[in-house]
C-alpha cells in the first residue's frame, strides 16, 4: 500500500497551492466580510485548468485523476473555502454528471466549456420541502410536444446566478415516486428561469448562494440528462462524488486552522514562555493534527477508489462525515487556542469555524451520511 502522491499529483497540488497562497488568500477576509463572490478570481483559477483536471482531453480536460482534483480543492479551501465549494459545485455537481450521463452532443456543448473554465456550473436539487428527503420534489416538468415545461423552485443553490449551466431535477411522473424524477441541463437566461433572493450565510460567504425559480420554462427534449426517470439515480451518484469534494474542502479548512493554531501557539508568550510549551495546548494541537491526518486518509482513499472505478459511495460518505466533523472540531479548538484573538475578526480562525459548519450540512447532512454508511454496513 503506497501513501505517496504521484509526480502528477504533487504538481497539481503545487499549482493549486501557489495560486491559493499568492492570489486567493489575501482577499479571503474581505470577500467573507462583504459576502462577495469574485468571478475574476474564479476565472483565474479555472484558467489554470483546475476545473478540467479529472476530465479527458477531448472534453477540455487534462486527463488527470480525481485525487489530483481533490488535492486542488483542499489547497484552494485552505485559503478560501467559499472558492473551494464554487470549484467543487462546478466540477463535481455539474460537469461530472454530464460526463457520466450526458450524450456526446451534451458533453461537447456543456462539459467542455465547464472543464475549460469558460463557464461555471451549479446543481439544483434541494427545495423548501425536499431537503434530505429529495424524493419530495415539487418542481415539475411536463412533456409538451418537443419540449418539457418546467415549474417550481430550488433553494440554497451554490453558484446560482453566476453559473451559466445548471443541472436541475424535476418530477416528470409523480405517480412513480423517486423513479419519476428526471434531470435536465438548463442554461442561464432561458425564458422563465430566474433567480430569487441571495442567501445571507454564516460561513462560506465568498460563495454565492441563491434561489432558482422556474416559471413555464421550455426545456428542449435534448436537454434532458440521462433517461426520463433516471434523475434520482443521477442525483445520488453525483452527490457520492460531491461528498469527496466537501471532504476535501473540510480538510482544507481544518488544515488551515491547525496550521494557524500551531504558528500562533509558538509565537504567543504568556507567563514568560510560548503557550505551546504548555501541555494543555500541545495536547489540543496533537488531537487536532491527528483528526486532520485521519480526515486526509479517508478523503484520499475515497478519491483513489473512484479513480480505480471501485465502489466508493460508503467511503465518500465516511470521508465527508469524518472530515467535516473534524473540521468543525479543529476550527473550534483553533479559536480556543487563540483565546480572545481567536474570537476576533482580526484573525482568520473564527472564519474557519463559520466555514466549517456548512460542511456538516450540505451535500447530505452528516445524519444523512450515517444513513448511507449504516445502510451499507448492514446490507
Amino acid at each position, binding site marked *: 500500500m503506497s501513501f505517496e502522491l504521484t509526480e502528477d499529483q504533487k504538481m497539481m497540488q503545487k499549482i493549486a497551492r*501557489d495560486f491559493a497562497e499568492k492570489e486567493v488568500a489575501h482577499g479571503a477576509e474581505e470577500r467573507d466580510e462583504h459576502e462577495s463572490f469574485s468571478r475574476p478570481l474564479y476565472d483565474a483559477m479555472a484558467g489554470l485548468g483546475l476545473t478540467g483536471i479529472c476530465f479527458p482531453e477531448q472534453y477540455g480536460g487534462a486527463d488527470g485523476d480525481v485525487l489530483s482534483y481533490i488535492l486542488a480543492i483542499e489547497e484552494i479551501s485552505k485559503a478560501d473555502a467559499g472558492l473551494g465549494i464554487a470549484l467543487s459545485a462546478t466540477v463535481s455537481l455539474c460537469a461530472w454528471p454530464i460526463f457520466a450521463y450526458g450524450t456526446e452532443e451534451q458533453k461537447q456543448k456543456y462539459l467542455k466549456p465547464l472543464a475549460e473554465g469558460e463557464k461555471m456550473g451549479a446543481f439544483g436539487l434541494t427545495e423548501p420541502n425536499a431537503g434530505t428527503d429529495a424524493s419530495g420534489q415539487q418542481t415539475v416538468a411536463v412533456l409538451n410536444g418537443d419540449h418539457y415545461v418546467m415549474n417550481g423552485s430550488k433553494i440554497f443553490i451554490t453558484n446560482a446566478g453566476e453559473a451559466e449551466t445548471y443541472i436541475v431535477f424535476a418530477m416528470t411522473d409523480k405517480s412513480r415516486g423517486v423513479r419519476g424524477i428526471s434531470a435536465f441541463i438548463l442554461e442561464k437566461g432561458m425564458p422563465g428561469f430566474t433567480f430569487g433572493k441571495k442567501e445571507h450565510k454564516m460561513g462560506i460567504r465568498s460563495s454565492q448562494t441563491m434561489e432558482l425559480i422556474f416559471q413555464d420554462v421550455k426545456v428542449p427534449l435534448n436537454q434532458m440528462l440521462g433517461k426520463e426517470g433516471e434523475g434520482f439515480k443521477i442525483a445520488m451518484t453525483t452527490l457520492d462524488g460531491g461528498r469527496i469534494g466537501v471532504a476535501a474542502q473540510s480538510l482544507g479548512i481544518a488544515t488551515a486552522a491547525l496550521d494557524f493554531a500551531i504558528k500562533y501557539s509558538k509565537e504567543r508568550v504568556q507567563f514568560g514562555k510560548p503557550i505551546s510549551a504548555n501541555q494543555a495546548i500541545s495536547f489540543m494541537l496533537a488531537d487536532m493534527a491527528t483528526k486532520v491526518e485521519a480526515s486526509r486518509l479517508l478523503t484520499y482513499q475515497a478519491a483513489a477508489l473512484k479513480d480505480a472505478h471501485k465502489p466508493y459511495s460508503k467511503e465518500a460518505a465516511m470521508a465527508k462525515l469524518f472530515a467535516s466533523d473534524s473540521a468543525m472540531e479543529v476550527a473550534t479548538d483553533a479559536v480556543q487556542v487563540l483565546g480572545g484573538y481567536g474570537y476576533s475578526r482580526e484573525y482568520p480562525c473564527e472564519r474557519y469555524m463559520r466555514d466549517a459548519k456548512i460542511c456538516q450540512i450540505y451535500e447530505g447532512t452528516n445524519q444523512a451520511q450515517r444513513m448511507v454508511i449504516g445502510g451499507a454496513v448492514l446490507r
Partner: protein
Amino acid sequence: MEIVVCVKQVPDTTEVKIDPVKNTLIREGVPSIVNPFDKIAVEVALQLREKHGGKVKVISMGPPQAADALKECLAMGADEAILVSDRAFGGADTLATAYALSTSIEKMGPVDLIICGKQAIDGDTAQVGPGIAENLGMPQITYAAKIEINGDMIKVDREHDDGYEIMEAKLPVMVTVVKSIAEPRFPTVKGTMKANRTQIPVWTAADIAADEKRIGMPGSPTQVRRIFTPTQRSQGQLIQEETAQQSVAKLMQLLGDAKVI
C-alpha cells in the same frame, strides 16, 4: 525568434531562519524553487514568443534535482529545456558557471536573445548573465524593466539610479530583467502534465566538450574560505509608553540626548 532563458534552482532564502540559540542556519523545510527573477525572465520570453513567434528554451546548470526547476518552466509554457549537470561542474563559481552555460548555449544553435534574471536570491551575484554574454561575444543590457523587439533591433528601458536609460541594440543580445518587467504566470494543469512527461536532456561536461580547466573547482578563481553568521547589531531601547504621544516624546528626548538630532 530563438530565446534562451537561463534559470537557477535556489533554496527559498526568504524561508531560511537562523537558530537564535546556536546562531546557525536552519535549512530544514526550506523548499527549492526557481529563482524568482529567472521565473520573470521566463515570463518575458513567453510574452515575446507570443508576440513575435519562435521558441523559448530554458537552460540550467545544477544537480539532477534542478530538472524540477526546468519542469516548472516547461509547465509555464517553455518549448524546450536542457539541464547541464555533471559532478565535474561541482564547486563552480560564477566564472566557471558562465563558461559551462555559454558553451552549452553555443551547442544549442543560433540564438537571438538570452534572458537572465537580474540576480539569484541565494548568491545575489548578478554575474553569470554578463559572463555568458562576454563568452559569446554578445552585447549585454542589464536591469531591463521593459523590452521591445522591432525586427532585429531590441529596445530596452534599463533601470538606473533615478529612472531609466532607453537603450537600443541589434540582436543577438543578453538582457537581465528586474521584477517590475512582468508578473510570472502560474503554470497550467495541462502544461504541467505535459512537462511531467517530458524527458529533459542532460548534458555532461563531455557533451559540451568543455575545457576541464575552465569548469568546476579548477575553473573557479574564487574560493570560499569561511562561512559565518553575521554579527547582529546590539539591541537598542524599546519604548512603550501609555500613549503614542508619550512614546514619541520619549523618543525625541532620547534622540536629543544621544545627539542624533
